[in-house]
């Protein structure tokens, strides 16, 4: 307890964090592994991923207009934040908790994209992919709904490691995504406090994209920054340019290393911009002008990477064309898969509720079969 002074003053100052070098100052190319700067191969891979995500994302909006899927939540402009952070995940031991807008993360982690996109086809809430195998929790429609899950999962890693928290190369880390809007939810506070009290290996990854549907960040996040909240929990925070994929990869890797070593949680606030509508049902013209949109969005993260790769001679136009062609082929394959995807059988409604079903539920299933399937 802090006694002795009648007025104890305010606020411990947060220890400064070394800057993460991003591509706009200097593109850090090296031959080192995951711990060091990015290699040329990695940078090209990041570009290919971003193109694939961009193309799939914009195509999904077209799918919705064409009636292939009933709705979609685009991530236009957030490709660097998503691909960069997903790129830092070790899918042999980490676990990722997405919202409804992390298609780019899923793609980067290698999740089956037909299974992923099935949620937007209204096939199955949460998606058809296997979350355990893909290390990606089901798609989460409750804003801030899974942030606490990440803390519980992470604490489970601490418990499983017992006293040897740092053997085996360290702990599995939970990476949880949420938005500037979600940061207002009580669950996010509870999650940060729990994680920091328990020193759980969690990386809180906020995509501050400027908007929560129609509400801008300045009417949402008091104080102006989600990262600024971390100090109050004694937790390190990085506020990064979320449109700089190199900065994102490096910040996320740094945060993973911190958490993996048993030092507790880290918060990353990736500053980005939601260039498109909130969802295909949204009409942004009602709450922001095109001028505001252009000003807020700044430079396109994909184009920024392209320019740097060109300038530094890491990739050429042929590479970009190839990447785009691959993205197009991939989208076509996913679209075909989605179009071929039938409805799930109605019996799954009943069969998947429990591990051990109940007589009452079986009776209802029988009744349903009789009345709806006429068997």
């Amino acid at each position, binding site marked *: 307890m802090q006694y002795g002074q009648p007025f104890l003053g305010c606020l411990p100052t947060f220890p400064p964090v070394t800057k993460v070098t991003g591509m706009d100052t200097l593109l850090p190319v090296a031959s080192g592994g995951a711990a060091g700067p990015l290699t040329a191969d990695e940078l090209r891979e990041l570009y290919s991923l971003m193109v694939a995500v961009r193309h799939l994302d914009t195509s999904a909006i077209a799918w919705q207009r064409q009636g292939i899927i*009933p*709705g979609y939540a685009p991530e236009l402009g957030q490709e660097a934040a998503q691909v960069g952070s997903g790129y830092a995940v070790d899918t042999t031991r980490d676990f990722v908790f997405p919202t*409804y807008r992390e298609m780019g993360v899923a793609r980067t982690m290698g999740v089956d994209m037909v299974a992923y996109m099935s*949620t937007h*086809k*209204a*096939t*199955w*809430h*949460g998606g058809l992919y296997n979350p355990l195998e893909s290390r990606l929790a089901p798609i989460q*429609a*409750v*804003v801030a709904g899974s942030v606490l899950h990440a803390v519980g999962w992470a604490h489970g890693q601490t418990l499983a490691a017992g006293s040897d928290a740092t053997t085996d190369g360290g702990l599995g880390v939970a990476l949880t995504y949420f938005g500037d*809007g*979600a940061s*207002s*939810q*009580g*669950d996010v506070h509870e999650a940060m406090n729990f994680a920091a009290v328990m020193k759980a290996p969690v990386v809180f990854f906020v995509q501050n994209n400027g908007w*929560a*549907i*129609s*509400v801008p960040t300045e*009417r*949402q*996040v008091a104080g102006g920054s989600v990262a600024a909240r971390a100090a109050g929990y004694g937790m390190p925070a990085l506020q990064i340019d979320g449109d700089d994929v190199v900065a994102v990869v490096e910040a996320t890797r740094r945060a993973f290393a911190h958490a993996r070593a048993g030092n507790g949680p880290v918060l990353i606030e990736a500053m980005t911009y939601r260039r498109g509508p909130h969802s295909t*049902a*949204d009409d942004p013209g*009602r*709450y922001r002008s095109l001028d505001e949109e252009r000003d807020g969005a700044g430079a396109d993260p994909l184009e920024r990477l392209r320019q740097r790769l060109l300038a530094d001679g890491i990739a050429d136009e042929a590479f970009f064309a190839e990447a785009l062609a691959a993205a197009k082929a991939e989208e076509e394959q996913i679209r075909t898969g989605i179009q071929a995807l039938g*409805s*799930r059988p*109605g019996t*799954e*409604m*009943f069969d998947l*509720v429990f591990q051990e079903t109940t007589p*009452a*539920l079986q009776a*209802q*299933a029988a009744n*349903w079969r009789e*009345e*709806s399937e006429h068997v």
Partner: protein
Amino acid sequence: MSNSILESANAAASTSAGTPASTTVMSMQQALNRALDEVLAENPKAVIFGEDCGRLGGVFRITDGLQAKHGEQRVFDTPLAESGILGMSVGLAMAGFHPIPEVQFDGFAYPAINQIVCQIARMNYRSRGALPMPITLRVPSFGGIRAPEHHGESLEALFAHVPGLKVVSPSNPHEAYHLLKHAATRPDPVIFMEPKSRYWQKGEVDMADGGTPEGAKVMREGRHLTLVAWGAMVARCLQVAELAAEDGIEIEVLDLRWLKPIDAGALAASVRKTRRAVVVHEAPLTSGLGAEVAQLITQSCFDTLKAPVERVTGFDVPYPSGDLEDEYIPNIDRILFGIQRVLEYKRG
């Protein structure tokens, strides 16, 4: 019987003969918007707020234009936190305001349940009447629009069980206009459950004459069986009654309207006449409001009932994704099967 009847039958529910002069045709969205506009104009203490309620006018446009007309002090956006919205409502009510908060979708009322149950519903009681809670909580409710998870829930059984709350749900634009105007001028908390699948259906609204805002309402008279429903299921039951009439079966359709307090008298009156009843709701069967309705009917009509009250409801499963929605929500077939069971019931 085929489900294809479903698609064409929406209109039937909202037309009526002998239109008085004060009647206008509008959608439920328009009727609700109009009601809120008038409430704001009539009561300077009324304030509307929630996620995206202000500038955007709500994701369903129910509050469309109200901020522009009544100002940012009367109609405003809040941060994204439902407990915050409802907890703030308590304080505003204590300060003499009439808050009309919105929860964006049914499933997002859960984060606010603590404030609703432990605070809003009890503050009048706790304070011995000194701190009334004239809070009208609008909740776009129920399913049927192929929406994402948590956007198609039916919370009426939960709300109806909470002492200190009143709960109402309109079934058409006319009801929507009058019930909202009534609810939003009451001194007690009212949960106003809007059937979102009916927002864009048009119907005649008699602005001048709403009839009594209390209790249930017979939407169609009949003598062979009573169908009890609320929200979006009323229109579906009216379609069913239409179909059954072709076979000479005259079904009475009772729009329960108030889910708390339930109009036990209206249930008794109808079933004493028809001697048979089926209650229909979207919520899961077990511990749903259908059990309460059935038990109220059984209690008052035990001697006259020809068959046990039947329940046609959603199943005891999480509300499914769009592809399976029509399997989950009571459809015409399933309601007709329920009716058949009751009509064919033989003692012994």
